């Protein structure tokens, strides 16, 4: 063990190689089989010829100027926002919509209509299901206070923070034209 502790970096590699030839797996008392924690000799120290052993890698010669950088990033036409030319009017609400595509506003309204209809169909009249259908004592028994998790509280006011698709613009009325 004393020889391990005094292992120095200069000439260490030859020393290790020499050790490697005599270390065999299964030798029980030798503890130098964990030298990976120790700092090993770098390439420059082995060859002694400076950084990266004389190899020079390709690097940019100069800093790319503000103008050139922005020309590269934002000038090409295919990277810019394109004008939509495939627009027409929604036949039911009159706002703009993409041609050959449903108007998302009307789709949402019709889906909401389905939801209310199905809710009314499934709900049998005369049977109390909601908290307001019960009197005070029954309500306390049927709907005891529930501790809401942070996630449930967050989902309560989802309409305030969730990004929604904005509605398309209305088609302006043409004045003085039929």
């Amino acid at each position, binding site marked *: 063990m004393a020889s391990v502790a005094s292992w120095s970096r200069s000439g260490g590699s030859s020393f290790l190689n020499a050790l490697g030839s005599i270390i065999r797996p299964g030798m029980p008392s030798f503890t130098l089989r964990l030298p990976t924690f120790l700092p090993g000799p770098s390439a420059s120290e082995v060859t002694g010829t400076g950084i990266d052993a004389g190899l020079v890698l390709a690097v940019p010669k100069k800093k790319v100027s503000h103008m050139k950088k922005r020309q590269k990033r934002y000038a090409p036409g295919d990277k810019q926002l394109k004008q939509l030319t495939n627009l027409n009017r929604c036949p*039911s609400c009159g706002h703009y919509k993409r041609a050959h*595509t*449903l108007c998302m506003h*009307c*789709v949402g309204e019709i889906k909401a209509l*389905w939801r209310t209809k199905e809710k009314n169909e499934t709900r049998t009249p005369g049977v109390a299901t909601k908290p307001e259908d019960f009197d005070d004592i029954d309500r306390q028994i049927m709907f005891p206070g529930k501790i809401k998790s942070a996630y449930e509280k967050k989902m309560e006011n989802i309409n305030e923070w969730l990004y929604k698709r904005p509605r398309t613009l209305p088609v302006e009325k043409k004045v003085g034209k039929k």
Partner: protein
Amino acid sequence: MVVLKKLGRTASARKSLMRNMVTSLIEHESITTTFAKAKVLQSYTDRLITSAKHNTPTVNTLGKVYRPEMAVEKLYTELVGRYVQRPGGYTRIHKVEPRLGDYAPQAIIELVDGKRDMKFYMTARVVARLERQGLPIDKTTQMNLEDVIRFRQNGKEEFRATVEEMKKVFYKSEESISNLPTGSQPASRVKKNVTFVDAPTPKVYGQ
């Protein structure tokens, strides 16, 4: 079956995806997914319904859906009965706006003549608007109208009721019909500096 689109999946993953989507489609009658998936699902669903209609002993519908107690039950009772008259084309795809977030092209795929037939409701809404404005039904709407009530049971009556409902829900106030399309499509384009003459009567030879 020839695989036309792999959807970036292995065969087993694709099969699971199709089973999953067709089960949802049968359950809810209409689902929103990407356009590519909708196109593949359309042929899958149409094949499934066709094979259920034929109902030969070799037909295996159990392996093509999940939750067969719901899906196969509904397929053989409700859907087969609904599509007895219809010679194919049991699903319909509508393009919708791209998805928020990754801008993937999306589509609504629906079972035709179902309770969530978007074309039926959209056409009813357009007819309601036209009636509310006092305009005649234009050519495209007439075509859509005939399409949605053609094979539907009590289609005409149901359509009429839906139109009245749409009038109440969406076009109740005067303000709601203030900025709507007033004219139908423009009449045939009139060409300037061109005079049309009648075609000359063809000469008959050999008389």
